[in-house]
């Protein structure tokens, strides 16, 4: 099904929007609830590579659209992450591995947008770099934790959408050579 990735994106969007609303509540603390990195893991298990890549890129573009992040920084990173995950499905074979992948993918994506946004705000040059490092820790750790917490409910919705579209389930066992 060629448009499966687009339908899946529409199924995932309420979660992305809910994360934006949660960021609204945490705005006074300067925290962003980021889940885009975790949202690409479950589709990468079942979709084909050429479907996973546009899905991941669109998830990235949706996050970037209303924030001062350089165009495409997060989207292209997520596209790369989708290629990586679909190429080595052993990494997301079972639930503990998927949770680990969700945490890693979300934290890495958060690191990317945070760094690029800092660069765009001119906060990476010279002495400012040393104040940038401590600021990085809280959002990245929060992203890793959020990735783990949010992964199960998001993947339930995504898997239900993929089941309805007739996408074959991913194999739980080790891949045959």
């Amino acid at each position, binding site marked *: 099904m060629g448009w499966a990735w687009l339908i899946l994106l529409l199924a995932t*969007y309420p979660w992305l*929007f809910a994360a*934006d*609303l949660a*960021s*609204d509540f*945490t*705005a*006074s*603390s*300067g*925290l*962003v609830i980021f889940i885009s990195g975790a949202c690409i893991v479950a589709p990468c298990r079942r979709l084909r*590579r050429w479907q996973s*890549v546009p899905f991941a890129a*669109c998830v990235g*573009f*949706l996050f*970037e*659209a*209303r*924030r*001062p992040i350089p*165009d*495409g920084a997060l989207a*292209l990173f997520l*596209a*790369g992450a989708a*290629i*990586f995950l*679909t*190429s*080595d499905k052993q990494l997301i074979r079972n639930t503990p591995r998927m949770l680990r992948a969700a945490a890693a993918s979300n934290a890495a994506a958060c690191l990317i947008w*945070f760094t690029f*946004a*800092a660069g*765009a*705000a*001119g*906060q990476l040059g010279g002495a400012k770099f040393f*104040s940038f490092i401590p*600021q990085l820790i*809280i*959002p990245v750790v929060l992203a890793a934790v959020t990735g783990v917490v949010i992964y199960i409910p998001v993947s339930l919705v995504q898997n239900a959408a993929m089941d309805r579209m007739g996408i074959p389930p991913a194999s739980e066992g080790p*891949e045959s*050579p």
Partner: protein
Amino acid sequence: MDQNRQGARASYIALTIFVAIWILLPSAVRRFNREAFSEFQAPALHLAGKGRDLAKFWELKSRSNEEMAAAGRDLARINAALELKLKSMDDVRRENVRLRDITRYKDTADYLSVVARVATRDSSSWWQRIVIRKGRNDGIRPGSPVIFGITVVGRVTAVHLTTSEVDLVTSPSFRCTAYLEGDEQNRIVLVNGMAGNSLGSARARISVIPYDYFQPAGQTTQVFTTGMGGVFPSRLLLGTLESGPLSAKEANFKEGQLIPARDLYNLQEVSVLVPLHQTPGEALLQTDQLQ
């Protein structure tokens, strides 16, 4: 397995080529892409904002008649006081118009006030912004000042069809000139947002404070806009200068921190002052976009 590896390698090469093309693409294409994804999200933002308004409406509707009567009585008192104030302002306005006529003073800073509801707030170390539920369709233009009462909230940075993004006073991209209360010589200081710490409260920096300026003892120092630069009208309140010793960064100047006049993350409604005439800043923006 080999096929899978080959496919992955080909995908990485394709992605690298796409990244190169993406970087080389004209900025208009990237802007169109950003705009398309923003517009996709606009209905959800409106829905969330209207849902919040509806919840507020029902909350107010559930209040007792006694409470409403008390609120009405308070409002009537405030109205009476304001009417009296308006009357006294009328004489001042007439005198002002007369003096302007005599001196042939041309006032270019005319604004159209557009009231907008806040849809969402978004904040990180590198930006503090709100999204409002009015956009290009309502005449809002990039660079327009955003206020609440006489308090400066920020400035419009991006305008979409039905929504706009506003950079708050504390956002690192915000800059404006200001006067400090109590400085009889009206020397100009600079206000610009600071990159905030995660979990910390957002502040702005006041720089170029003259070395011989001292805060009045025992009172807070208010910071007002100058009206220079043609963006903000003059005498709008930016906030207060944080009390305590001011740090000296450069030889003849000191630096302090600005505490915003309002809790910027609890605003429900703001006013966008859209200039009736094109400002020099807008002309520059247009030139940038044409290039």
